[in-house]
């Protein structure tokens, strides 16, 4: 196999080389997989195998339902434990792809004799799919670059593809949504996004019905998994549209686009949640428009080949005008009649960036919908962010169909990522592709040592310069790995259900207040108890405490959320009325003042006020919660509306007792409540039933109405008047007498 000839050259059989090469690639992939999976395991190792955050708890609960009750029951699932008293048609309002995927994996593993707990499958699903994403990235980049000599020639193709796979494997922009335990739709959706694009590029290149059908199939999978499928729905038609504008119309494009559109649309309509949206909603109009346009182009193309130039131009103008007018009139009519739904608010807010801020506070309030500052881009993508434009520039040097796709994707995704912080997730793949192209081009030029070996004149300088460039960029790559590891470790590996902090001696402290409180709820309250909390905690209460909630992270009913917000924002007297009408039993409040946890309800309070103000402007006014000087205060100088509000009282009730010898200090807002004032905060209509170790979660029970019909407020006043100083102290120390129910 290996021979050394008489001149001293080593010749190796090219079959062996090929084998070696593929072995190497396989080895690299194994390494990427190990790197990708292991960097996502920080949270499991540090904490435990636990579902994270908020949404994953719902997905987990739904998956359990699916595994226990089967697919058909799952599709028809009406959940009466959320959105009390309305309930939620859960089966018809979720993307089932994620749950079905894990259920299938669970059942398959059970079939082959590996029964694994469904929770562990859910926890590990995202890391497992991330390694698949890396492979999909490899093929996508290969497909994007392999027909262009200038983007990556010869041997460099595989290099670029491998680089992109490595980048994607560990980029924090993707890890942020795919650490172990982050059991969310995005976990599988990004993989599907990459696979869909890969097959789309292949289909366009070959004009193959087979590949575009496969594209449609994966598109369907994507639709079933994530609402972000709209990105594909609009990107592919835009790609085709730009190609048409560039005069690149071929029958290949026609075949692949029409096949994808027809099959993809029909299949996507099979998802109950999507239903008839693909032909009605405006964010699906682009593919329909391009579908119509491409038919016209095809007809035009035919006439062009049959008619003389003059006649054709006349025909083109006349038919263009007619079609244009017909189209506009049709569109207006359809909208008027109501065939076409107006823009969905969430999508509309992407285009008119002030829309959500003014009209839909519920959307503006979500932390993921905030715009992205530059630091987040750098944080999530490190040096790739400045290599990204370089890669796009290389794509401009040879505008193949694939390169056009990269450019459109880049511009669109960077806009979307700028508007909404969570869409960095869709930007990350293309940044990895562009970064890989850029770095491959540089390496390709500077790792070419043939001149040096051949012994040209300025041998040393050339060698030195090449080593400098290679060395520096090699170092940047190393730096990238360090950065990614640090970011993953510190920013994205916290389950946010369990918090961690450091003690004075540097040892780690785990703060498990959430689960403590949810477990208390589960064990100490009746099974049909209704718990009111801000919508953030709805899914967690459902998942961990298994109690009925009023609002949750699905946020489908703005009025209902506003009602809960109002119950929190108004005075006890008014709040009691609302809570009785809603049927509240328990109230859950997150309070970070003791711990210094800034994501607590008092800090989110403004949104509760704003959202309820949107519905009852005459009763709730944001301005009232600020001091006359416009400050957001919680101490003695707090605004009256603030002091009266239910949430404020429930947060700071008995807060003064923690500081027996002085002023009470709120550690989040850094404000002092004087001792006498802190003691004066009193509650009449609810009683405290539980407060977790670090006061993070506080639970209250709405008192039963008085038997004699007296109002609870006056009752408490009388009691206070009667109570002696000693009696008051006893009352405060009284613990709820509740038995453990097992």
């Amino acid at each position, binding site marked *: 196999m290996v021979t050394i000839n008489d001149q001293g050259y080593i010749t190796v059989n090219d079959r062996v080389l090929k084998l070696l090469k593929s072995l190497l690639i396989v080895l690299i992939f194994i390494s990427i997989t190990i790197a990708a999976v292991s960097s996502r395991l920080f949270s499991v190792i540090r904490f435990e195998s636990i579902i994270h955050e908020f*949404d994953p708890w719902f997905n987990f609960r739904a998956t359990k339902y699916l595994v226990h009750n089967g697919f058909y029951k799952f599709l028809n699932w009406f959940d009466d434990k959320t959105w009390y008293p309305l309930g939620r048609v859960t089966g018809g309002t979720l*993307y089932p792809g994620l749950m079905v995927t894990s259920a299938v994996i669970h059942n398959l593993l059970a079939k082959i004799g590996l029964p694994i707990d469904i929770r562990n499958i859910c926890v590990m699903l995202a890391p497992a799919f991330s390694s698949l994403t890396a492979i999909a990235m490899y093929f996508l980049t290969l497909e994007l670059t392999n027909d262009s000599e200038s983007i990556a020639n010869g041997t460099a193709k595989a290099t670029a593809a491998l680089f992109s796979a490595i980048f994607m494997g560990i980029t924090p922009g993707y890890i942020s949504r795919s650490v172990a335990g982050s059991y969310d*739709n995005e976990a599988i959706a990004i993989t599907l996004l990459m696979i869909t694009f890969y097959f789309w590029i292949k289909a366009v290149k070959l004009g193959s019905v087979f590949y575009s059908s496969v594209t449609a199939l994966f598109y369907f999978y994507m639709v079933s998994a994530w*609402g972000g499928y709209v990105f594909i729905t609009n990107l592919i038609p835009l790609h085709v549209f730009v190609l048409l504008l560039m005069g690149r119309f071929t029958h290949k494009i026609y075949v692949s686009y029409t096949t994808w559109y027809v099959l993809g649309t029909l299949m996507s309509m099979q998802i109950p949640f999507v239903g008839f949206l693909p032909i009605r909603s405006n964010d699906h109009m682009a593919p329909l428009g391009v579908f119509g346009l491409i038919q016209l182009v095809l007809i035009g193309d035919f006439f062009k080949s049959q008619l003389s130039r003059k006649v054709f131009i006349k025909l083109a103008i006349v038919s263009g005008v007619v079609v244009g007018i017909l189209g506009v009139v049709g569109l207006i009519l359809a909208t008027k009649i109501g065939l076409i739904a107006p823009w969905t608010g969430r999508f509309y807010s992407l285009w008119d*960036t*002030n829309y959500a*801020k*003014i009209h839909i506070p519920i959307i503006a309030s*979500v*932390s993921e*919908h905030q*715009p*992205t*500052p*530059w630091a987040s*881009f*750098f944080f999530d993508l490190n*040096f790739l962010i*400045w290599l*990204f*434009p*370089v890669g796009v520039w290389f794509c*401009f040097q040879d*505008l193949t169909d694939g390169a056009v796709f990269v*450019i459109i994707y*880049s*511009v669109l995704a*960077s*806009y979307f*990522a*700028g*508007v909404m912080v969570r869409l960095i997730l869709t930007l990350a793949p293309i940044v990895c592709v562009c970064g890989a192209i850029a770095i491959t*081009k540089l390496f390709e*030029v*500077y790792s070419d040592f043939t001149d040096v070996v051949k012994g040209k004149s*300025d041998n040393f*300088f*050339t060698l*030195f*310069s090449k080593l*400098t*460039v290679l060395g*520096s960029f090699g170092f940047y790559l190393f730096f990238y790995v360090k*950065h990614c590891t*640090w970011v993953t470790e510190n920013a994205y590996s916290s389950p946010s259900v369990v918090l961690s902090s450091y003690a004075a001696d540097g040892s780690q402290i785990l703060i498990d207040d959430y689960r403590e409180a949810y477990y208390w709820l589960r064990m100490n309250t009746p099974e049909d108890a209704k718990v009111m909390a801000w919508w*953030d905690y709805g899914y967690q209460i459902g998942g961990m405490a298994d109690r009925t909630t009023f609002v949750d*992270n699905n946020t489908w009913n703005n009025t209902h959320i506003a009602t809960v917000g109002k119950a929190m924002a108004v005075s006890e007297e008014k709040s009691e009325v609302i809570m009785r009408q809603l049927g509240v039993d328990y109230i859950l409040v997150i309070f970070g003042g003791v711990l210094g946890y800034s*994501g607590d309800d008092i*800090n*989110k309070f*403004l*949104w509760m006020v704003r959202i309820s103000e949107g519905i009852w*402007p*005459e009763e709730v*006014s944001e*301005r009232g919660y600020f001091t006359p*000087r*416009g*400050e*957001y205060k919680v101490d003695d100088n707090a605004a009256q509306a603030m002091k009266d509000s239910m949430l404020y009282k429930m947060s700071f009730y008995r807060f003064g007792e923690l500081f027996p010898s002085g002023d009470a200090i709120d550690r989040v807002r850094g404000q002092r409540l004087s001792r006498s004032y802190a003691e004066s905060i009193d509650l009449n209509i609810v009683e405290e039933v539980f407060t977790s170790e670090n006061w993070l979660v506080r639970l209250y029970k709405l008192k039963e109405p008085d038997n004699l019909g007296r109002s609870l407020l006056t009752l408490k006043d009388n009691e206070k008047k009667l109570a002696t100083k000693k009696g008051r102290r006893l009352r405060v120390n009284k613990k709820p007498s509740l038995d453990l129910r097992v």
Partner: protein
Amino acid sequence: MFPGTSVPDESRRGLRASSPPPSKVFLPRPNFSFIPAYKLHSRAVKEHVEQFHSTLLYSLCPNSLPMKLLHSIFWLTAIIQLSLALTYKQLQEKYLKGANILKIDNKNYKLIEEPREDFELILFITANGAEVNCRLCKEFQPPFEILANSYATNKADYSDEEIGKPVVFAISDFTYSRKFFEALKLQNVPKIFHYASTEKASNALNVDNEYDFTAADFIAHLRNWITATTKVDPKLLEIHIPPNYNAIATNVMVALILLIVIYKKYELILAFLGNKNLWQGLSMVTIVAFIAGHMFNTIRNTQYIMVTQSGSPVYVQPGHQQQLGVETQIVGLLYGSLFALSVLLYKAGANKEGSGWLSIVISIFVFLLYSGLIGVFHLKNMGYPYSLIRLF
């Protein structure tokens, strides 16, 4: 399908952070003499009558003739006083005369002090004159007028029962109501006051509510404020923006001219639009702008630069939740230069005749700029542990 609610910046920094402070208008110190505005009006009369009822004499012999006479005299005066109060109808006939907005000037400003029988008054106090130079006044007057006109338009569609107590929108400008300003002892404008309907005459200083010029979206906020203070049905304040015929005409003209230009010069335009460099430049600029956080500035309306208490400028605001306008420019410049240098580096390497010095120089620059970028990032994220070389 959301995670949690975000923590708004205002809850950390206070509401006023980005709101424009009302511009100070210095008026001549008013020579204000207190007008004793206490005349006998309905409620006062009723009180008077009640007082009379409670007198010993009346309680002893309520049905004696002199008492009855006295009683009826008291009631008569009460009724007369009641009719003295300003009603909405009178207001319409005497002052509004078909206009949607009541103008308060030197002559009629006293009407504020009269009792308002059956309407609420929203008064916008402004100073549009050149001598005052109040930027906010000019900014807020058109939306206020839109709201007032919308109310008038909506009111025509509803019956009186549905409307309830009508709201009267009034404007008082410093240029023609100097006396009123003096009476109010105003120091700064613009201001929006709410005078609720009263049965008693009152001083113009007796403002029931004052609007706070805070939020960015003035018209929506003012609308909410009016609904909250006057309890008017929000549907009556649905906003109608009158079509701006000037703008339409201009747009049509521009479109026509564009069409003609396109028709005449379409080959040139096609060549221009078909130019790759144009699209390349556009794409590069937009991408760099977006990844440097341009959209954040647009959406959040961020400040361009910040000044500390001691007066020194701040270019980079720490923390991932905030950003200054100038940061985008700094970072955009860094990204742009890094991009240009990388392309140059590639070209230098691809050029076989090059000596190699160029590549070394460029890669040193790339290194320095990248260190700079990380340095700026350090200012944003204090806890970030790595750096290439510590520049600052």
